[in-house]
């Protein structure tokens, strides 16, 4: 009980952030026309490429001789970056279909 109280008291504000973010995430999506399902999926998928930031911090913090960490860290950057670049680009292409060419 003590531990619980302590944990809650110490982290209450983080919990708020988490719950508010989740709630907001739910609210953001509502009544999306079906045609936009795929672009929306693709767009949010590009955002999950934010994991690249972790790779960047990892590599920056790594010892410049620790080739394993550097290698794996760089790998994660490469993978994440593909997700980011490809994700945004492909979403953009999908959305171009909605541009109505005027006569």
């Amino acid at each position: 009980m003590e531990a619980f109280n302590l944990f809650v008291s110490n982290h209450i504000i983080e919990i708020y952030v988490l719950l508010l973010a989740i709630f907001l995430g739910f609210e953001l999506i509502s009544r999306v026309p079906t045609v936009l399902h795929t672009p929306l999926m693709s767009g949010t998928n590009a955002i999950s490429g934010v994991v690249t930031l972790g790779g960047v911090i990892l590599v920056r913090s790594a010892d410049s001789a620790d080739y394993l960490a550097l290698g794996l860290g760089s790998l994660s950057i490469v993978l994440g970056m593909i997700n980011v670049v490809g994700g945004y680009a492909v979403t953009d292409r999908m959305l171009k279909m909605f541009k109505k060419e005027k006569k």
Partner: protein
Amino acid sequence: MTGIVSILYMVAVFCFAIGIRMLRQPKSAKQGNLISLAGMLIGIVGALIQPLGEVDNNYIWIAAAMLLGTMIGWPLAQKVKMTAMPQLVAMFNGLGGASATTLGIVELMKVSAETPGGSIAVSILALIIGGISFTGSVLAYLKLEGTLRKQWVVPMHNFWNLLILVGMVVIGAIMVVQGSVNIPLLLGLVVLALFYGVFFVFPIGGADMPVVISLLNSLTGLSAAAAGAIYDNKTMLIGGILVGASGTILTLLMCQAMNRSLWNVILAGKFKAGSGAGGGTDQVMKEITKPDAAILLQYSKNVIVIPGYGLAVSQAQKTVKELDDLLNSMDVEVKYAIHPVAGRMPGHMNVLLAEADVPYEKLLDLDDANAALKDTDVVLIIGANDVVNPSANDDPSSPIYGMPILNATDAKHIIVMKRGRGTGYSGIENPLFFHDKTQLYFGDAKASLQEITEELKENA
């Protein structure tokens, strides 16, 4: 510096939120994607300049890795065919998951006695969730590509399912409690996670893959959030959570649009896919949903309506005029192609459309209509059947062979409104309904038109 970085990170978060919000409407979607991209760039800048104390930075490695990633991702996205986009998204998503897994592995390898339990836990989470998302997405990719067509179900699927999950939890718990990580355990965890992804996706049919990808997408978001927790990075944490949460809702919406439950999709092994498959034939009628039909009409430059007997039966003449007026106000030009024998008496369509006050200038007769159809974005067929039946052109055995028809297939898109699989006056099947370009909207014509009109008004 810290202050600025914190603010950069915060801006990035809200760029993501705003971006997602804007992606939900056709008008703002493109811009939303750009805002979200801006957020990503801001976040990366933040990660690059964030004060980390005395570190080696290794910017060369980072630059090289980023360049490499960009050089792979960009051309892939540019070259892919429209139809292959969903599988590419799956692939990208998988790579994001793999990225999180890698981070998890590295962090777990670094674990020492001082590492707090919480850090170990979030690393494990990033590893597991990312791993599942990785293999699951790759499998989804293969299924969509058509490389992998099989779908099998192991007997006692749920049992094994549970077993793997329990296995991962147990290994994770050991690591956290012990406060240390050894290679066999780590390897075991990685293998279990990767395997679980395969195990999860394999039984699901190809047609349901979009839903699965959306689900995996929300998993990748969660893995990014877990990785964010490792580095106490708010952008990753909140950004990941936004993706996780919105991805979940999107998944549910997609299921809803297919008129199925998520449960039903995931346990789909038992049910066969392809809900619209033709009765006796192996051809498939594609259905179109209300919002899609509305958007297709709204974003076209011209529409030709082909009314038939069904329009008369449902007395939808005034409703079609209303839709016409609405589309006009959206700069979509609407004309009517009147087939000489549409309906059940000479001039049947004329009587109806005159009653609805459709101006005579909007009516095209057979020849004019067939000329105009070649340059038409959407043709909307309302309760017509025989008069657009292509077998009149190409099937000498057909009872209507030789009758001139309206060549709907010349238009870019075809929407057909009818109540069901009923045939027309001549009682024969219509291959047009199975045509590549054709999408069906089932229901009484008047009700259908009203639905689309409502939808359009909401979009406006």
